[in-house]
């Protein structure tokens, strides 16, 4: 194994402009919350980064009232072309402050700086830029609906894996369609959403249009069941998604859910194997595997199994795990102690159920939450690591002989968020992409995202789309 020495190349922490404390954002102003405070931690070294106000029930009331007021008095009546200009402004300011946002994201989340810098932040800006243009063109969005109306106040709850990007995915279409928003970022990653709130201030967005309420599950639950909300959008686990769907039963409120996944990444024997191995690595180790659409089940055609595993192991030996702020780092920290415990537990179960566990020799930092890239072979379909969403850098490898068997195994899950196909044969790609029951199919690529491209799940991975013309429908009364 090549031992590649790199000089450390850390991005400066000061660029993140980290503050000691952050307020919640309601009606255009930052303030303390009636739910106390929480401490957000850098998962790479377990140091407390900042103290953040926690929104309680009264704060949720206040935020929903502010959002309603803004919907009725400013944002709702505003011409679409002006809403568009506000969103373009936000896109531009995100670009202007991109380096700061990238560093802050990496500190709060643990993901490598090269990912926050090259993926999360640019895509967040792109989402605002794309949706800005829709604000005055809604008459063209939904066929047969020349005059679609917004829904009102949207309550949005987002996860910790792409904190800023998920905020952008939620805010941009909601605002473009003319809704106002109360957003709850994840408990462990509230910081960039609060900087985004500050960006809304810099853009002179009218007060109340965007409100950001940090907090844990209780804050989210209070928001979701609040009678003043017209629409709920949630990204997170299937378990919580179900609970939200139950909570909203019979209310007639609109709901979109982007939930868990257990994507199959299918490698045929005619695939360009070196590219496929890059795709496998990107599929499951991008963002430490904290990706709902991660390619966590690798399905390899038997005839190339040995070759693929050998290439994969060799490639994993070159991955660099460590300081997320270092520009050479490939694999950052697991986001929280709780998540690390879950990844460990499921991996132990995988081993106990008879699968063979492998990780490259990989120094693990002394402090922080770390888990090495891990590959399980000899996995049966019934094993927990082949069925449950691990949401960590853990790959389960299975094999197949025929395309029909690949389809059968790939679809053998209650989830249906994404899938990957690797083959040089065009007709097989189109056939496979038709057979796979998943909302996104990446063929000869993986984990690509774009605001123009609708994203969302089949089956228990949720319903509704984000991105594209079709994503706007989630925020329009049609």
């Amino acid at each position: 194994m090549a031992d590649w020495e790199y000089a450390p190349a850390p991005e400066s922490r000061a660029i993140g402009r980290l503050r000691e404390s952050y307020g919640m954002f309601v009606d255009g102003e930052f303030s303390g919350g009636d739910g106390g405070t929480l401490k957000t931690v850098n998962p790479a070294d377990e140091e407390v980064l900042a103290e953040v106000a926690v929104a309680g029930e009264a704060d949720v009331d206040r935020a929903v009232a502010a959002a309603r007021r803004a919907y009725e008095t400013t944002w709702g009546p505003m011409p679409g072309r002006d809403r568009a200009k506000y969103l373009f402004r936000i896109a531009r300011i995100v670009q202007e402050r991109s380096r700061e946002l990238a560093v802050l994201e990496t500190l709060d989340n643990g993901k490598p700086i090269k990912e926050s810098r090259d993926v999360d932040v640019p895509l967040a800006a792109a989402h605002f830029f794309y949706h800005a243009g829709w604000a005055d063109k809604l008459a063209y969005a939904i066929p047969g609906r020349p005059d679609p109306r917004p829904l009102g106040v949207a309550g949005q709850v987002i996860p910790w894996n792409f904190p800023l990007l998920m905020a952008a995915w939620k805010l941009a279409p909601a605002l473009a369609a003319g809704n106002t928003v109360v957003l709850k970022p994840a408990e462990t990653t509230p910081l960039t959403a609060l900087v985004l709130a500050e960006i809304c201030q810099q853009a002179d967005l009218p007060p109340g249009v965007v409100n950001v309420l940090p907090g844990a599950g209780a804050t989210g639950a209070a928001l979701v069941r609040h009678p003043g909300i017209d629409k709920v959008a949630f990204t997170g686990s299937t378990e919580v998604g179900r609970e939200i769907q139950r909570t909203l039963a019979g209310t007639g409120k609109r709901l979109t859910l982007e939930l868990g996944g257990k994507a199959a990444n299918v490698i045929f024997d005619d695939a360009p194997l070196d590219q496929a191995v890059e795709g496998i690595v990107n599929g499951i180790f991008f963002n430490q595997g904290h990706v709902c659409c991660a390619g966590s089940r690798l399905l390899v055609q038997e005839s190339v199994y040995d070759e693929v595993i050998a290439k994969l192991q060799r490639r994993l030996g070159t991955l660099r795990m460590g300081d997320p702020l270092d520009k050479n780092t490939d694999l950052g920290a697991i986001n929280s102690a709780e998540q690390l415990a879950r990844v460990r537990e499921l991996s132990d179960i995988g081993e106990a159920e008879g699968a063979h566990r492998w990780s490259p020799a990989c120094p693990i930092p002394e402090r922080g939450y770390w888990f090495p890239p891990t590959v399980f072979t000899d996995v049966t379909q019934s094993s927990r690591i082949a069925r449950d969403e691990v949401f960590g850098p853990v790959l389960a490898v299975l094999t197949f002989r025929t395309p029909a068997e690949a389809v059968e195994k790939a679809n053998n899950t209650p989830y249906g968020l994404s899938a990957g196909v690797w083959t040089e044969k065009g007709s097989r790609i189109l056939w496979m992409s038709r057979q796979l029951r998943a909302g996104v199919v990446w063929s000869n690529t993986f984990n690509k995202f774009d605001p123009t491209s609708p994203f969302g799940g089949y089956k228990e991975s949720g319903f509704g789309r984000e991105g594209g013309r079709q994503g706007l429908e989630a925020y329009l009364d049609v």
Partner: protein
Amino acid sequence: MSERLGVRKTYKLYIGGAFPRSESGRSYEVSTVDGRFLANAAQASRKDVRDAVVAARKAQPGWAKATAYNRGQVLYRVAEMLEGRRDQFVAELGDSGAADPESEVDGAIDRWVWYAGWADKVTAVLGAVNPVAGPYFDFSLPEPTGVVGVIAPQRSALLGLVSVVAPVIATGNTCVVVAATDRPLPAITLAEVLATSDLPGGVVNLLTGSAAELAPWLAAHADVNALDLAGVEPEAAVDLERAAAQTVKRVLPAPAAEPDWTADPGTSRLSRFLELKTVWHPMGV
């Protein structure tokens, strides 16, 4: 000369293309609004719901794989068959208390024609090619959700029923339909139309009986992907929606009151039971 004694029809269920009685052996009396006996309809059970879901699941891949042109022709064939049985439906709707049976039958026939024409247009109208910022060909197309459980409208026994069933199957879904509890006979006669319209068995499965008894089994069934609660009272819908959440079903909620089925149907029922799939592929030489 004595008047000829008529041959009455036994009204049964419609599952997997066949007309079985309820496995429970139960039946219930169906009468006109003024109390005249019409028939003993089959009273479907939980087991019938399960059998119907099995039939719908079995039929789904084949129906989805049929070309859109073919599905459109089959739906149009349903309109043709319905037209040929116009008098029978007018009489049955009259018995079930319809205000204007003739225009209801007209409306039902025309609705099949409307949705027949949609079968091969949905993909172009609701799909897209997406201009992503990179060297990828990226497109999105709608696909059927799968097996849909439908609680048919309680008042409009034919037009209402057709208005909820046709958009579900036009796009390649299959369904299990619980007919109007007190007006089940036009539904079973419609099943006879479907059975003679080249519609593969299992695409539409029709149950008669108590919607209140059957709907919870359908809502909780893990192999049902979506629910249309058109014929459910809003109060009763809460528990059904809750049960549906267990497997994250797509739910078209119960209306506050039964809608005017003669209104322009639009595309909202079509798009409700579709999933959007996005496919990426790199471009290069």
